[in-house]
């Protein structure tokens, strides 16, 4: 979104930044644009929020490769908070952004030595391993990290992603289940576990996948992925060698799921005859079958 700078006063920009922080949105392009146009000269007026805004701008600057802005803001923070570990972490991130990984690792080790309970620098070290492409070492370090900081959902989520990239689907499911423990009512997590189970394949996994997709739909009946997923699982079961009654039930569910998905899509889709595209699923599903191995 391009913002109309002339109409936005600094208070509007400050409120927008706060909204993004609260919603955990990382609109880096917009943050930098608004910062340069409006807020930079008036940041002193924002009072105590100033430091949070500076941190937000530093991360946005790293994302958009504006290391000049990042350096300036880090300088502002470090003059106000000399010797602060939080500011040192940003300095390490700046080195990381310039691909000076060895210096960054040294600085992070220093921070960890000063405060062993600080989780953030440990995670940055793992991020550096990932950036270097050393996925296996990153997985090993992340597992060690999780042995100490067991309730870090973000880390479990990241570990799940790394395992998926390595093809270790059962371990990825375990990680996602840990995230589910923290968010039992999240339809997205249920759907993600269902997708991993479906990818693993095999009758047992498909049945578990069907359960998770159903739960996702119960939590959010608008989840289009869960509808399609439910259709895929039920079709598989209906075409398999299960008991007759099971297959009949699956067939009915599959039909319902596809119809609901088609209805929901064609109601708002702009594609011509989208329903025909969706019904093609019924005919070609048997032939196109990608499995994980």
């Amino acid at each position: 979104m391009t913002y109309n700078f002339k109409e936005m006063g600094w208070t509007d920009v400050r409120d927008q930044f706060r909204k993004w922080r609260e919603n955990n949105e990382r609109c880096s392009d917009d943050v930098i644009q608004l910062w340069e146009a409006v807020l930079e000269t008036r940041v002193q007026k924002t009072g105590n929020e100033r430091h949070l805004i500076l941190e937000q701008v530093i991360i946005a600057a790293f994302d958009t490769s504006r290391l000049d802005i990042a350096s300036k803001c880090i300088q502002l923070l470090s003059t106000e908070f000399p010797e602060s570990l939080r500011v040192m972490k940003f300095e390490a991130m700046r080195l990381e952004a310039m691909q000076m990984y060895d210096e960054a690792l040294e600085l992070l080790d220093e921070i960890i030595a000063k405060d062993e309970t600080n989780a953030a620098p440990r995670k940055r070290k793992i991020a550096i391993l990932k950036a270097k492409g050393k996925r296996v070492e990153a997985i090993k370090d992340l597992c060690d990290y999780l042995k100490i900081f067991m309730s870090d959902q973000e880390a479990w989520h990241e570990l799940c992603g790394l395992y998926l990239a390595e093809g270790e689907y059962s371990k990825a499911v375990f990680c996602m289940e840990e995230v589910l423990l923290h968010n039992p009512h999240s339809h997205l997590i249920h759907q993600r576990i269902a997708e991993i189970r479906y990818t693993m394949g095999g009758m047992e996994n498909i049945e578990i996948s069907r359960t998770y997709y159903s739960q996702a739909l119960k939590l959010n009946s608008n989840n289009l992925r869960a509808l399609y997923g439910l259709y895929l699982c039920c079709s598989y079961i209906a075409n398999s060698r299960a008991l007759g009654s099971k297959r009949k039930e699956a067939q009915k569910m599959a039909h319902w799921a596809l119809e609901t998905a088609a209805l929901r899509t064609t109601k708002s889709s702009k594609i011509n005859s989208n329903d025909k595209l969706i019904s093609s699923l019924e005919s070609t599903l048997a032939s196109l079958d990608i499995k994980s191995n």
Partner: protein
Amino acid sequence: MTDYQFSERAYAKTIFHAAKYPHLAVNGVLLSEKVPKGNTVQIVDAIPLFHQCLYLTPMAEVALTQVDAFADRENLVVAGYYVAPENYYDASVEKAPAVKIAEKLLECNKNACLVVIDNKLMSQNHKQAALKVFNSNGENARWTKANYTLSQAKLTLQTVSELLQRGAMREVVDFDNHLDNPENDWTNPHFNRDLKQLMAMY
């Protein structure tokens, strides 16, 4: 050996998709004319598919089926798979995510190609096409480098660079966006104009 020719539309959509999600891996399929011109396959369009969970199959199955039906309707055929790796330095077939999809496409179309986007060449000032094209002779499913050309190369690269600077990539829609909100159109008809019209739009 088959050669490939990329149209401006296919190249632009592919690069825009990768540019829209610079921090993630993205993938998609390429569509071509049903009959190759001599030894050259004409890639005319690109359908961006996913930017999350590239390694998971259910949504990929749904998407590929629908894209297949769409291609058939437009008198085109699915002729390739493109992927942009997450890591800046990855540009090889081994490190590319979800190459299994490309292998599956090979079974249906023996001229199918695998395109890996070279992240190092993605910039706001394209000097050369940021693609690495591979195809396979089908025997042992190994991917070997293939030759390709870009239609109207100089003008296409210039236009794509200019549009990247103007932020046009934010409007490209992939299948993931469609699943989030069915109003989003993964056929991207607004990008189906020629280069001059696109420049005028932004």
